[in-house]
């Protein structure tokens, strides 16, 4: 039965108090995501299996990247292929800043002397690397921001190629096509990535709900209506793009100090595919989508690579199967569920209540549903 039609009237016919702070409907999301994430984190810490801890750390770096990816792509609706390029810039520059000058001159003899001299404490080096990525984005992005849809995507792709070629050829900065080895011990720790991930979840969510994020989402849905509502779409896109480059750069720095030897190829199409598949499968329009996409695709990839390994051991070569299955999964999602697992919505207290009320599922219902899909 349809609800009774309410008549148009100029007098208020609903008198309810309205609060702009809607915890159950909105602000419970970051809390949920953080609780789920921290619980997984502590569980793995409690298991104390180095192999799994490594997977958790590297997946968290992916999570941070996907969150930053969502921040611009999800809110603006523009495919931002160049994103992983900024992660590369952050990765190389944070390494240059954090490495000991002696070590640098040994590892990368071709490096500019002024870069060799630079030396900052690790955490500051991460910020400095991220700021370089931000600066590069700030300098080149403005003319690209007016381009939308396929034109926008193609220019972003071309930009990724430019960044990749520069990173892979500039011997005086990145050691060129040779591997850039950081040396020393692993500085990106389990605790550090957890802390950063929690902060980034909060930051990305706050961005989405801020005036700027709201304006950016409006331009995603209708550029003309946004313009006639007082929004300069180029300016809001620009700020979103540059801010997401900062998160990319920071994640890149965490990555290089975790892996300890990088090349420009680490920040190119295969990494782009990883973050893109996570965001598309999770649902690009919500922070929850970025989070659950990362979770689901990480679990799927780990499971598939075990299968791959098993098959190969039993004499059936199956290398690359993981990528193919994830790619097919992405295609399936784009056809049948283009807004991803989350459908573009956020996980909130209200959505939990609805879920429990409707299907009588336990609070883990959402994850169970996702596991069925794998």
């Amino acid at each position, binding site marked *: 039965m349809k609800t009774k039609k309410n008549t148009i*009237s100029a007098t208020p016919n609903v008198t309810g108090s309205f609060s702009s702070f809607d915890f159950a409907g909105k602000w419970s999301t970051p809390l949920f995501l953080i609780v789920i994430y921290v619980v997984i984190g502590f569980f793995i810490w409690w298991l104390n299996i180095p192999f799994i801890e490594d997977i958790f750390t590297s997946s968290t770096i992916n999570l941070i990247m996907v969150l930053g990816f969502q921040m611009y792509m999800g809110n603006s609706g523009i495919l931002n292929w160049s994103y992983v390029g900024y992660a590369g810039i952050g990765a190389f520059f944070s390494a240059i800043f954090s490495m000991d000058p002696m070590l640098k001159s040994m590892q990368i003899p071709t490096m500019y002397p002024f870069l060799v001299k630079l030396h900052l404490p690790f955490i500051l080096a991460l910020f400095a690397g991220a700021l370089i990525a931000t600066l590069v984005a700030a300098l080149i992005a403005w003319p690209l921001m007016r381009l939308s849809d396929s034109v926008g995507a193609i220019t972003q792709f071309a930009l990724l190629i430019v960044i990749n070629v520069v990173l892979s050829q500039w011997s005086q900065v990145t050691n060129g096509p040779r591997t850039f080895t950081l040396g020393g011990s692993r500085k990106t720790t389990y605790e550090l990535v957890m802390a950063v991930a929690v902060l980034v979840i909060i930051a990305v969510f706050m961005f989405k709900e801020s005036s700027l994020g*709201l304006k950016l989402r409006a331009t995603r849905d209708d550029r003309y*209506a946004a313009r*006639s*509502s*007082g929004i300069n779409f180029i300016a809001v896109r620009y700020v979103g793009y540059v801010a997401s480059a900062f998160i990319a750069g920071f994640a890149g720095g965490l990555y290089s100090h975790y892996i300890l030897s990088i090349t420009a190829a680490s920040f190119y199409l295969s990494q782009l595919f990883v973050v893109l598949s996570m965001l598309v499968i999770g649902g690009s329009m919500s922070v929850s989508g970025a989070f659950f996409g990362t979770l689901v695709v990480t679990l799927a990839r780990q499971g598939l690579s075990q299968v791959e390994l098993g098959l190969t051991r039993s004499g059936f070569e199956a290398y690359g199967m993981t990528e193919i299955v994830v790619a097919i999964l992405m295609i399936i999602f784009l056809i049948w569920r283009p807004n991803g697992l989350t459908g573009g919505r956020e996980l909130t207290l209200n959505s939990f209540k609805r879920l429990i009320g409707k299907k009588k599922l336990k609070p883990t219902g959402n994850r169970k549903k996702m596991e069925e899909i794998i």
Partner: protein
Amino acid sequence: MENLSTLAVKSISKSFKGLKAVNDVSFHLKTGEILGLIGPNGSGKTTTINMVTGMLPKDSGHIEIDGQDISDVPAYKVPVYGLVRTYQKIRLFKNLSNLENVMIGAVGVGIKRREAAVLAASLLTELGLGDRINEPAQGLTFRDQRLVELARALAAKPKFVMLDEPAAGLNELETDELFALLKELPAKKNIGMLIVEHDMRLIMSLCHRLHVLNYGRTIAEGLPDDVRKDPEVITAYLGSAAS
């Protein structure tokens, strides 16, 4: 007395590849009044709105609000000067909630997010959509989408609103309801309203003054009763109806 503002449109023109879509059109609009912009199909009504709101660059002419020239203000700054519009084809932000849609109107002119949320909620409540503020805009009926678009325009606290065929796609009952609502708005919110509409019956009962276009030129202006009797207007309407 409330402050009275005036929007003055001074001889604006626009050609598309030599075709004069709007030719030397001038009118003015005061807060509190309703001006009907009418004319047969293709007479240049929407083009006029597009030019006045800065969406479309004009070839010549000026637009002033209280003597301040806003002719060269970019479209995204026009709402800041107190002039907003709606579209004939509804343009909502379909993935945002109704509340967020209306908030955009306020946030777009620089109102703080929290204040915008409270304002948006009260506007939606006022228009009878108070119980669906958190629903996504794309789930609404056509009529309700019209109302959300109107609320979004009002959230900018405008002095002037331009409505491009607000009743397009509505049935007769919904149209009557909408026009009853619109009739009250100018006095209540102290806004000047310009309405583009085809339905002569409605426009005659609603508008204080009329401005008639045909082939991009002004053919008549004045009180509804006078315009109705104007021979050129009769020809234009009968001519278009006959063709």
